[in-house]
């Protein structure tokens, strides 16, 4: 694979290549969503996580299938990294009956019980207590699983977050509080909304805290490895804060007039995927191999989109009859 592997470099490049593949799969999926949205093939609201892919990829590398995650409204990457299959994912976004939620959920309300993905959430902070509840389920079951509670910096001022970090510490629940801090709470800078410190908040409750560069997937991967191992060993909650950048608007189509054009222009140089790509080349990987990888992912995505286009739309009567479980 590598041209002139240095000692240890082969291992590094294999790990980075795996992470890169996952990030690229998320990036390309969201770019495809963006295009489908622009072409009116996806209705409603979608919130893209372009620029934030390192976080769920770095974390999910350490998760088992039965570990649970609750993801945010900006959660496509968090969902895909946990193993939500692309075909069901695209069909859901496109409102088809073959969607993983039969076209009833969409981007903000997608879940896949089969891979422990408990649900995206249209409510900021709405998944926090659910993730903590699944951590309680893991504690009761005693099988050594853990929960990942994804949230954004915009959720830091939500009351339920504060209730839940207290509870998780009080009951020693196996949960990783994973904050993707992109500096923006919807249309406002987070420093105009929240004046606390996640680190100090964790310390106040005796919860271990680590910060990782969310633009560097290996940094997230290494930090998450420590935290996940620590949670499994101690059943104590931990906090991981990753500083990331939000490349797109709050919602797709958001003209972002509230952002400084210079800041937006500077994002390009911070692209975590481009960084990983450059590093792989520096480690000696062939560019053609990465191109082939990209083509493979494109094919997978296009197959998912084509299948969704060909799929039936959901029937109203079936949806109406399924408000309650039987």
């Amino acid at each position, binding site marked *: 694979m590598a041209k002139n592997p240095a000692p240890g470099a082969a291992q590094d490049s294999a790990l980075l290549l795996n992470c890169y593949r996952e990030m690229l799969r998320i990036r390309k999926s969201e770019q495809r969503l963006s295009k489908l949205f622009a072409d009116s093939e996806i209705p409603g609201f979608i919130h893209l996580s372009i620029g934030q892919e390192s976080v769920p990829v770095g974390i999910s590398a350490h998760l088992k299938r039965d570990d649970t995650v609750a993801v945010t409204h900006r959660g496509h990457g968090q969902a895909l990294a946990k193993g939500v299959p692309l075909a069901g994912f695209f069909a859901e976004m496109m409102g088809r009956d073959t969607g993983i939620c039969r076209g*009833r959920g969409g981007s903000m309300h997608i879940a896949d*019980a089969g891979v422990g993905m408990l649900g995206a959430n249209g409510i900021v902070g709405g998944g926090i207590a659910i993730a903590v509840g699944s951590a309680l389920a893991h504690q*009761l079951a005693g099988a050594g699983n853990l929960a990942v509670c994804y949230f954004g910096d915009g959720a830091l001022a939500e009351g339920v977050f504060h209730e839940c970090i207290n*509870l998780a510490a009080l009951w020693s629940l196996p949960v990783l509080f994973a904050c993707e801090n992109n500096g923006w709470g919807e249309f406002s800078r987070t420093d105009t909304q929240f004046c606390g410190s996640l680190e100090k908040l964790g310390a106040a409750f005796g919860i271990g805290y680590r910060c990782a560069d969310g633009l560097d997937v290996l940094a997230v991967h290494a930090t998450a490895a420590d935290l996940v191992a620590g949670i499994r060993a101690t059943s104590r909650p931990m906090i991981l804060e990753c500083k990331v950048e939000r490349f797109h608007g709050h919602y797709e189509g958001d003209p972002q007039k509230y952002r400084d054009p210079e800041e937006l222009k500077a994002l390009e140089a911070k692209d975590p995927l481009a960084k990983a790509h450059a590093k792989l080349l520096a480690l000696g990987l062939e560019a053609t191999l990465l191109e082939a990888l990209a083509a493979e992912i494109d094919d997978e995505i296009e197959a998912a989109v084509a299948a969704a286009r060909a799929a039936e739309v959901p029937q109203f009567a079936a949806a109406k009859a399924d408000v309650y479980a039987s």
Partner: protein
Amino acid sequence: METIRFGQAIGKALGDAMRADPRVFLLGEDIGAAGGPFGVTRGLHKEFGAARVRDFPISEAALVGTALGAALCGWKPVAEIMFMDFCTLAMDNLVNQAAKAHFMFGGQSAVPLVVRTPHGGGLNAGAQHSQCLEAWFAHVPGLTVLCPATPADAYGLLRSAIASPNPVVFVENKSLYARKGGIEADPQPIPIGEARLVREGTDVTVVTYGASVYAAEAAVRKAAEEGIDLEIVDLRSLQPWDEKTVLASLAKTHRLVIFHEAVEAFGIGAEIAARMADVGFDELDAPIVRVGAPFMPVPYSPALEREYLPNEDKLMAAVRRVLL
């Protein structure tokens, strides 16, 4: 047939459900060694331990959300919200999360979650500890809402609630906790959605639920003195409610009064009246009349609360109206 108090019947249902299924566990404020503010969970902490009878911090949003997360993982949590008024703090988790998870995730998930909570006045507990908010929850697709009146119904419906794959708001009128009633030696679950015919009568149907059932029963003698024979239907289950039984009763008496402690405006009674005015139009010999609390916060002073609460005299005034 044994005699048991309403609160004890609920405790018995919780204990029996926990013995029958290791996935059932309880969460709530002060429900452990303290036995709950009304003593409903007394003894359960000792039998099942702190892992299954969990004292929760005063964090209602986390309480319901955590219970929901556990339910989505296959556990059967029963959460207690100390007063129904405090449900406001857990509304996102009840309304946006629990109620919708099954539907919006395409039927993947069952949500075997029960939220028990006491409603109702009569204790001079004032505006924030006395409300009957069940209509809010009955308005939310995905939620089941139950409100038993007797110890036997409390037991049987709570067993059904815990067995249900859907989120249930189980409402207990706090003035009933000490009330005694009969229960079978081996009580069985009572199906959700079936009303109980409390008393057969020929002249006026009174549809009611919760503590108001007893006020309706108290009105029977007064009515009889005036030559009026009341039929009383106890809904027990508010969402879904037993339209068939109410309609059958209306077809017999042709007169309908709906009687509940909750605020009358936009309440459970409004829904029943609207449905009966539609599907029961041909049966009606008089306007449908509702008797509920006036449109005001529950007042504190005994002198005010007495006048605020619906009672048999207000019910009788309505009964006379539909017989004019």
